[in-house]
């Protein structure tokens, strides 16, 4: 407050309007679930799965941010809970951004739930800043049904805070508007940032309570003591902008579609239509000088008997910026996908493949072509492209599912820990690898994991089968492991040198797919395999060989 005429104040803060949809994560989750805003709902996330966003009815029932879910459910028994999902938040916010774009031409999504736009020109066009705010609120409400609030002020932080109060701060008054507020409001500029929360707490303990006090601190001292985050916070506290809001240029997703009449039963018939679509899409893209990041393939399958329609959809990441998406490559992608859909295997047991009556291709994440450049040096310069080309050749030879990428996921046994995904396909991980997974087998992971467990016999010193009882008592020390039968892994007959275990793993026992197993590690010294580690599992008294440590 002391040096209002400081050199950095004037002219740096852009007149900014901020559009804020309260409790966005909950609103988005409600939209996806098809529930109305009157439902008490909350979104959980972060460490410990605490509540991070609450809908208004839940809030009036006493549910607050930061509560444990059990406590929240105690206060509001019919509370709907969803885990946080950034993708869902961002995706569902797109209609709001498009509604706002009917009022103003360029805007920036600060984060799902918050839109920023430079209000100068737009306010002149619509008459005044209040008219602009009213127009934005109306259009968002009419087109999406969400309630939002708009605030206008100088600079980012003041605009965000003004939006929370649905206020218009007069030009030049933003610094006073901010001055008396507690420093903790900085959290609204960057929610969920632990470092900022800790910094604000530190300032409180140091006696810096309000934004005015923070703004009055010497610049150099703030930079030296609190680093970049401190400088950022001080700039915001002074009502300055870190940078003016960037206008985004919206490129719409391109979609081409075609009805197939009569419906296609065979892959080649459907591929013929797909080739036409691919050429149209490719022409559209290249005519506008655009490249797409993802290709969405949608097919409508109609059951020939009942006439029931089902929509099949798959998303492919194209890495277009690297290689240039040709019509032939789009056709290949679609053909692999159609092969999957028109053969029963991917539809699950007992479901006959339905003929495809309609096909649509959509280019998503559209951006001007050539915006992304491969690196000149280091990994990823040329060999990524070279490798991608080789993979595409192999996919063209063998089909789309022939080349798999590997991803680690959560799981307890070595087979569960690996997820194989066809190259180029976008599939979310089945299980979160960052969860603790209690009972998981200790590292190192076995170097050979049998594709299918093979039945085995584990015998004790007197040739009797080793049995593990419910209390994990072993009937006798394992002395011999025999893998009977014919096959790649069969014929093993080895003496046990040492062993470890048994370790019980009961997974999903509350579902029909539940598995209860007991694992045993064995060091076997056979005629041909000296000191080979074996991983054996026992389920319902039957042993099987799961993996080898060789």
């Amino acid at each position, binding site marked *: 407050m002391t040096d209002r005429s400081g050199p950095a104040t004037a002219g740096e803060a852009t007149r900014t309007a901020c559009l804020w949809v309260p409790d966005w994560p909950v609103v988005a989750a409600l939209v996806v679930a098809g529930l109305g805003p009157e439902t008490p709902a909350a979104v959980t996330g972060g460490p410990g799965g605490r509540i991070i966003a609450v809908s208004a009815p839940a809030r009036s029932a006493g549910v607050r941010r930061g509560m444990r879910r059990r406590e929240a459910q105690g206060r509001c028994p019919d509370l709907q809970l969803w885990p946080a999902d950034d993708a869902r938040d961002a995706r569902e916010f797109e209609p709001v951004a498009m509604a706002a774009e009917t009022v103003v031409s360029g805007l920036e999504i600060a984060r799902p739930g918050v839109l920023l736009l430079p209000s100068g020109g737009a306010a002149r066009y619509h008459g005044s800043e209040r008219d602009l705010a009213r127009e934005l609120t109306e259009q968002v409400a009419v087109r999406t049904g969400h309630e939002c609030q708009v605030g206008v002020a100088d600079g980012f932080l003041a605009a965000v805070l003004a939006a929370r109060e649905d206020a218009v701060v007069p030009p030049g008054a933003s610094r006073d508007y901010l001055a008396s507020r507690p420093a903790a409001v900085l959290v609204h500029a960057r929610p969920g940032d632990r470092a900022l929360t800790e910094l604000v707490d530190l300032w409180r303990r140091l006696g810096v309570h309000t934004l005015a006090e923070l703004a009055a601190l010497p610049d150099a001292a703030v930079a030296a003591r609190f680093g970049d985050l401190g400088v950022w916070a001080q700039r915001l506290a002074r009502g300055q902008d870190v940078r003016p809001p960037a206008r985004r240029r919206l490129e719409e997703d391109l979609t081409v579609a075609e009805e197939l009449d009569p419906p296609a039963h065979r892959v080649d018939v459907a591929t013929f239509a797909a080739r036409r679509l691919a050429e149209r899409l490719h022409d559209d893209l290249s005519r506008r000088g655009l490249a797409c990041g993802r290709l969405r393939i949608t097919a409508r399958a109609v059951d020939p008997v009942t006439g029931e329609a089902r929509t099949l959809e798959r998303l492919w990441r194209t890495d277009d910026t690297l290689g240039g998406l040709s019509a032939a490559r789009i056709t290949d992608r679609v053909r692999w996908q159609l092969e999957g859909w028109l053969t029963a295997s991917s539809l699950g047991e007992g479901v006959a493949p339905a003929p495809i009556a309609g096909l649509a291709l959509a280019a998503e994440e559209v951006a001007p072509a050539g915006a992304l450049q491969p690196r000149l040096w280091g*990994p*990823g310069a*040329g*060999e*990524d492209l*070279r*490798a*991608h*080309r*080789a*993979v595409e050749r*192999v996919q063209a*030879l*063998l089909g789309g599912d*022939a*080349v*798999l*990428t*590997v*991803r*680690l996921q959560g799981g307890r046994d*070595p087979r569960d*820990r*690996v997820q*194989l995904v066809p190259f180029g396909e976008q599939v979310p991980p089945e299980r979160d690898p960052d969860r603790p997974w209690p009972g998981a087998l*200790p*590292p*190192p*992971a*076995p*170097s*050979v*994991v*049998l*594709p299918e467990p093979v039945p085995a016999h584990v015998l004790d010193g007197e040739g009797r089968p080793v049995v593990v009882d419910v209390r994990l008592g*072993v009937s006798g*020390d394992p002395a011999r492991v025999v893998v009977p039968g014919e096959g*790649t*892994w069969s*014929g*093993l*007959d080895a003496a046990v040198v*040492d*062993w*470890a*275990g048994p370790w019980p793993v009961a997974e999903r026992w509350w579902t029909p797919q539940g598995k209860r197993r007991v694992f045993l*590690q064995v*060091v076997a010294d*056979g*005629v*041909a*395999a*000296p*000191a*080979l*580690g074996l991983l054996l599992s026992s389920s319902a008294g039957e042993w099987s060989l799961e*993996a*080898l*440590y*060789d």
Partner: protein
Amino acid sequence: MAGGPGEGPRVLPVVPHLAALLPDGGLRTGTTVGVRGSTSLLLTLLAEASRDGAWTVLVGYPAAGMAAAADAGCDLTRTLVVPLPASSGVDAPAVLAALIDGMDVVVIGPEVALLEQDRRRLTIRARDRGTVLVAALPTPVSSAGSSSVRRETGDAGWAGAHVVLEVTEGAWAGTDHGAGWLRRRTLWVRRTGRGSAARPLHLNVEVPVCRVGGEAAGREVVGAGADGEGFELSGEQSSGTRAPGEGSASRPQLELVG
């Protein structure tokens, strides 16, 4: 990375304590390396090159434990798997040739059906393209019939391989009759090959089965350099005596056995 025009053969790095196993201290581009008897040795060989940016593909190796590969240090974002089931009747040499053109390291699993002339052609192609070919030779487990099979490079070998690493003996440490778990693997490796690798060399290697523990990656090798050559054995194998290896969990990771 591998074999651009006007570029001599490069050497892809390997984990330091495996460097002494290879004549160039790493995987020289364009060469063929055969590994027999230990998948963990094979995966560990790949790890450092993969972290360095090499694209790796495992062809016809459905049994390879990818969790173990990740633990060994492979970068899974640049690791691909082509299962290539033998029953599907695909043309394995054509697929391998396409992959050799694009990938930096191609691992050929034991389930790929190849003829002798296919192997020769693939070796030549890899040399031209500057790709490292790693052949997983059939493990003794699958041919458990006789112990002698393991020692001789019979028909299942890769005739043109520049370096063949064979595990002749091994030991696990960490278990104790029900307690503990498998922790550390010591391998007796015999190296044969052509050219500078022609003289057989016997090395004792501890496989860093897990990078997560930090222990294996931290400790470095004492004498993992060219000075190891002086101690090499000419051809005899001390296969009968396992004595030096028992209870060896705490000693340095690599030593020359002679």
